[in-house]
């Protein structure tokens, strides 16, 4: 049997005396897209940040392709796993050109063919070459999020960790970014873990999802089961009903 791309066993994270992630176990096979939903404070982003290596104080076991990772990640780890953040305003350096933002990873890792890689990354996210020498403030919100995705792709990763990648965007732009993420997963053979509070977005992009409440993953189910109303945990049902009520037109 091949190893799952991501395997998490009994992940626990505490901030001071307060435990905010209380033993989360999940497994994501290669090429799958896994969603984590929950209300604010449920610990969903904290799980993602631990996977990304942004929080080093956790216990339990995290494995990527069968190999356990240490708290502090080696540089090679980031060639395999990249993250995209919620707010494209906050995650791009305001005084660096797009070219500089995209090529930083290449120079840090001593990779060659900078021109080709930057151009291919821009192509992949359907941005024109002309944005290469612009600054983030000269781009629209959707273009900025594309740059953030391009920056993640330039590492040629196997896993993309997505933290609310469309919540700061208008719905029309959200549609473009969701289409892009869906396409990239197929063309680049990527594995996604996406955190979102929006059930419809998760249902659209993911195959399976986990529902978090008070630091625990209370249920894991397939999107097919979710759509067919086969969720068993009351909190999942509650979230589905809410998502439905808020999305329905009068």
């Amino acid at each position, binding site marked *: 049997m091949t190893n799952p791309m991501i395997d998490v066993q009994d992940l626990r994270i505490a901030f001071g005396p307060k435990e905010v992630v209380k033993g989360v176990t999940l497994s994501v096979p290669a090429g799958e897209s896994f969603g984590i939903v929950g209300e604010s404070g449920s610990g969903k982003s904290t799980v993602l940040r631990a996977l990304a290596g942004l929080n080093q104080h956790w216990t339990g076991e995290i494995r990527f392709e069968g190999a356990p990772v240490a708290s502090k990640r080696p540089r090679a780890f980031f060639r395999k796993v990249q993250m995209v953040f919620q707010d494209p305003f906050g995650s791009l350096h305001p005084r660096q050109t797009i070219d500089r933002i995209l090529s930083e990873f290449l120079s840090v890792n001593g990779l060659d063919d900078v021109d080709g890689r930057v151009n291919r990354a821009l192509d992949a996210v359907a941005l024109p070459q002309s944005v290469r020498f612009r600054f983030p403030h000269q781009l629209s919100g959707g273009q900025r999020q594309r740059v953030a995705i391009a920056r993640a792709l330039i590492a040629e990763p196997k896993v993309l960790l997505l933290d609310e990648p469309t919540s700061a965007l208008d719905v*029309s732009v959200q549609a473009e970014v969701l289409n892009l993420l869906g396409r990239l997963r197929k063309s680049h053979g990527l594995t996604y873990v996406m955190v979102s509070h929006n059930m419809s977005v998760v249902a659209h992009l993911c195959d399976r999802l986990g529902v978090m409440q008070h630091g625990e993953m209370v249920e894991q189910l397939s999107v097919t089961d979710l759509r067919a109303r086969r969720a068993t945990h009351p909190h999942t049902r509650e979230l589905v009903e809410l998502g439905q009520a808020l999305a329905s037109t*009068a």
Partner: protein
Amino acid sequence: MLVDIENLRITFENNGKRFEAVSGVSFKLEARQKLAIVGESGSGKSITARALMRLLPAQAQVTADRMLFDGIDILSQSEREMRKLRGGRAGFILQDPKYSLNPVKTIGNQIAEAWLTHNKGSKKEARDAALNLLEQVMIRDPQLVLNAYPHEISGGMGQRAMIAMMLAPNPSLLIADEPTSALDASVQAEILRLIDELVDTRDMGLLLISHDLPLVSNFCDKVSVMYMGQIMEELAAKDLAQAAHPYTKGLLNCLPSLDEPRGDLPVLTRDPQWLEEQAQ
């Protein structure tokens, strides 16, 4: 008629370049009526609401054929009179309570302060009024929240406190600019229900600014859809599903669905003609 705006135009001038952010917006709002202005970021919905309270920076040039609030001509009021209106006859709720509450004052003191600004009475009376208002916005333990600082309470609670503050002077109009966008889905529904109920029981008018078409359609009577500074169409909230304008349809159609899988989401194609049609 609570609000009557005819041909509102807001222009910004920067380095000699003029930019018209709102071009000829008109709408009317009656007491007990709920109107939503919906649009994407940059459509001019927030500055339309701010213009009504004259809260725009000095470089914004605001003109209108008519801009009346409860019969008062907003454009000709003195700043002193405007201060009485703002937070007095008209309350303004903003998106994120984290930024609109004073972090170094207790909730109780902030509400009491709002009450004292627009009512005459002792500090004791103001405090009692604050407690009473917190009860009205359905806070379970008002005594506790009264003495709490903003960082000690949740976002939903903070938004309730903001609403309590705005209710203090008994306004006839409530303007809510994305009041629930920073909140969880469950809290969103609660806050909207609360606003809905307060508007009904207090005979207020509600002007709700939002980017979320389906959400507002559940809570408002009328919806105005704004795009690039113009109103594309105004329709009854219950008719939203039968919207005629391609922009409104496009916005509704590009949402992912919880019920059924959708392949690629349709992407909105913006027609420059939308803006010309309105101009004539």
